[in-house]
């Protein structure tokens, strides 16, 4: 949670009699997080710390947000009183829905959980319901704040572009330790997890129980799958001129399909670019993409797919194509692999160091490392791959590019080369780092490696095989721990 520190409003809803249940169901989570360095992919960046409150689940497990466990080097559980700690491990994590389930890792598990008991997951809340946010003071005294549910919406709280059912609740909160994310309770049962707090508007975002229930159900068999996706991009149909051109009658709403991903459930169902989706599972979709949910009122259409269904479920899509109504059936699955991964939590960057050249697989994480203005500062040719992956996909699993050249005897004259996409090495097409590693094992008979860029001046350069092997040895001696990660 991002609680701002200038919040000094007194909370009048603190009740001490609730101490017992809070201490029974809540543990502090102390995480040490460490990302990988974008420019020197063998290194990790400086560690940072996050503290939050998790809630107890059956089987001595703890539920929290994915933000608390993603890129974690060390996670520790601490009881409310602060007199017991135990290391923890991740049982399951969903970066898209922002949920993680933790368990004790070694140590006195029974002792730690002796005074704790699992909290029950409740049902959904209604607009206007008053619910409690649980916090702990440093000394273990509970702080309970009542907030009022104002609306339900589809919100992205961690991995960008993934939207899940979230309540927005109004209420003034105060800063306390371990508040990065917090449990929210209704009638003694868990309602959801607080993922953010805006002190200016006094609005909290609370991840809804429906999403938590789906996550926990998925974890049960020990094989976590994740939330399904349809695989489309859409645009609204508010513009009356656009509607007239699409021949949309006034009594339907509908969303215009701008993109259908390859091998996605939508593509397999026969959905085409240019179709207008007017119903999903019989629920009418309005011009802005909202349908009417029995419990929450207007919700964005994606909840009808991701929030309600699981992988393998069937979804009925009603479309208008050239004014004709058609019903298509999609069998939902997880989104396929992307040419440029959108997030890379807990995944070390794949790279190869050869003679001082640093080759990497392109990820959105790499581009975002260019800072706040990464969309204008990151290399243009690499940004274009992120924006239009379809143009680069042929023959590739990933984009391999030259990210930098360490000045060495092998890279003399190449020092300024960077951010160049690799097409071939030693005549072999490069689909990913493993194929690059393999290609470098077979230099030409003249003892030279041939590196071909997709685009560059010059397009082809050469690297002395024996000199670069010698340089690689020196780089290891100079402290680069490994020369590749496949």
């Amino acid at each position: 949670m991002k609680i701002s520190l200038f919040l000094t409003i007194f909370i009048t809803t603190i009740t001490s009699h609730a101490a017992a249940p809070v201490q029974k169901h809540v543990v502090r989570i102390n995480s040490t997080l460490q990302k990988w360095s974008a420019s020197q992919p063998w290194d990790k960046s400086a560690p940072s710390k996050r503290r939050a409150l998790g809630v107890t689940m059956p089987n001595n497990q703890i539920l929290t947000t994915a933000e608390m466990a993603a890129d974690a080097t060390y996670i520790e559980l601490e009881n409310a009183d602060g007199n017991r700690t135990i290391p923890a491990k991740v049982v399951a994590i969903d970066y898209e829905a922002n949920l993680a389930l933790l368990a004790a890792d070694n140590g006195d598990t029974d002792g730690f959980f002796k005074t704790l008991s699992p909290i029950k997951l409740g049902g959904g809340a209604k607009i206007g319901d008053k619910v409690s946010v649980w916090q702990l003071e440093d000394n273990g005294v509970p702080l309970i704040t009542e907030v009022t549910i104002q609306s339900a919406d589809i919100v992205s709280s961690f991995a960008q572009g993934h939207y899940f059912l979230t309540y927005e609740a109004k209420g003034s909160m105060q800063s306390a330790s371990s508040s990065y994310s917090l449990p929210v309770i209704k009638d003694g049962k868990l309602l959801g997890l607080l993922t953010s707090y805006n002190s200016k508007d006094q609005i909290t975002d609370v991840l809804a129980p429906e999403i938590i229930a789906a996550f926990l159900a998925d974890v049960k068999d020990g094989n976590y799958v994740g939330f399904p996706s349809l695989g489309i991009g859409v645009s609204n149909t508010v513009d009356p001129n656009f509607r007239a051109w699409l021949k949309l009658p006034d009594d339907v709403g509908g969303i215009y399909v701008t993109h259908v991903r390859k091998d996605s459930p939508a593509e397999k169902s026969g959905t085409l670019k240019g179709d207008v989706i007017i119903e999903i599972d019989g629920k009418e979709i309005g011009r802005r993409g909202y349908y009417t949910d029995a419990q929450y009122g207007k919700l964005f259409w994606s909840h009808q797919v991701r929030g309600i269904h699981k992988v393998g479920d069937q979804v009925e899509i009603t479309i208008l194509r050239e004014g004709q109504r058609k019903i298509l059936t999609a069998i939902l699955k997880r989104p396929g692999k992307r040419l440029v991964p959108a997030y890379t939590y807990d995944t070390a960057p794949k790279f190869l160091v050869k003679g001082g050249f640093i080759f990497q697989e392109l990820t959105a994480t790499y581009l975002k490392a260019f800072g706040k203005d990464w969309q204008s500062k990151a290399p243009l040719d690499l940004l274009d791959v992120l924006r239009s992956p379809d143009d680069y996909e042929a023959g590739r699993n990933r984009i391999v590019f030259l990210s930098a050249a360490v000045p060495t005897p092998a890279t003399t004259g190449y020092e300024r080369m960077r951010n160049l996409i690799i097409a071939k090495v030693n005549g072999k097409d490069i689909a990913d780092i493993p194929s690059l590693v393999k290609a470098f094992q077979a230099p030409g008979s003249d003892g030279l490696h041939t590196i071909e860029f997709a685009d560059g001046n010059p397009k082809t350069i050469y690297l002395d095989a024996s000199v670069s092997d010698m340089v690689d040895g020196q780089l290891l001696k100079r402290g680069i721990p490994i020369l590749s990660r496949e």
Partner: protein
Amino acid sequence: MISKTLFLLLGSICLIATPTTYAQRLPDDTTAPIKVATPHAQNIYGSIVRIEAATQVPNYREPWKAGQFSGGIGTGFIIGHNRFLTNAHVVSNARRLLITKHGSPQKHPAKIIHIAHDCDLALLEVEDFSPFEGLKPLEIGLMPKLETQVRVIGYPVGGNRISVTRGVVSRIDFNSYSHTRSDQHLVVQIDAAINPGNSGGPVLQNGQVVGVAFQGLRSADNTGYMIPPPVIKRFLKDIEDGSYDKYVDLGITEFAMFNPAMRKKFGLGRTTPGVLVASVTPDGPCDGVLLANDILIAINGKAVDAAGNILIGGEKVNMNEVVERKFSGDLIKLDIIRDGKKLNKTATLKPFPPIQMYAVQYGVQPRFTTFSGLVFQPLDRNLYAAHSFSNTRVRRIFAHYIDEGIFKEREDVVILTRILEDPVNTHVSGHVGTAIESINGVKIKNLKQIHELLHPNKIPKFFVIKCEGIERPIIIPGENAAEASKRTQMNYGISLSHRL
């Protein structure tokens, strides 16, 4: 390429500075006695004039507007009968030019005879030369040597009268001319103070002009840059036929052959000359003459070293210096090694108009057309500077317009730069700042074509405007279009609907 922040010595700062220093103190008892300059120096001062420009800078954000009225001060000097040399940037976008003689209050209306933006030089004449008769024209001398002393004379900020500074020649280099933001020529760096207003003034050595002061460096002290004699002489020669034809370029990218593995691959010994031809500009003078991966070993008989330099007059200079002194139609002999074989090739230099995409344009009004509140403008350096385009595709097209041969397909890359809100377009969003791909299925090649497609004789039911990278097209119903165009022009005060 070395990245530097260069600034032109004339700009709005001159306009601000000039009036504040107008209250010029006349020499009186409190100031040191004025040293009377030698008669020779007096002669020279007379030939150095103050140029006052009133400018009108076009507005690329709202192209129908008249633009910004502004102005500035620069320096010029007489080089012949009614021929005043100055910088192009002193007189660019000028609506009125006035020349003032040293020591005279009279302002003489002047006009541009020739202007060369690519090398930042211009030639002016006055309506009536008689007041200048008898003044000695300055002679253009030879390239000054390193460490020799020079004088910079002009009318910089900080006073109204002529100013003289001294310095030495610190460096001779091939460097950027910031006026167009896209040209590189020979530059001489001096350590004399060059300030706004010095622009266009002569740099003298032994009474001869060895440079035209033109730009400075903001990030460093005591670095002034001047345009050296070879560039000045080339300009004067180019205009002999009555028109300026611009610089011509070989149209190749070279890559220094420093890497031992690279040298081995191309069979070059340790001291063998030659630079790699990394790429050849499509449709450029070397297209069909040179190929990528040729090794260029000599240009017009001068050996090219591994870094692409040649020896001229005892100085190592970039090999492009040979081409720099040539004109359109001239031949260039190129000795190359291709696949291990020595070959002798000849390229004919010719103008390459698409390169203008990257040069700042002056003295032209922005082209555009409007339709139902939508504003369309062709992409060029001026437009790029006026709008901050964030669309990756537009930025990429701009960056690769020449090397990927995009210019062959698209004479203009037309950008939807603005939507003036009107009932007909109010629900269109996310399209501003993208390139127009097609209109009613017809691929867009230039601005004129867009204008014609949007104003056809037979009005279609819908105008379908497809923007690059956005699937959802902009739809304007044919029957509402003309009325919406009229309405937006009226409401937003658009005095001109198009300029093609």
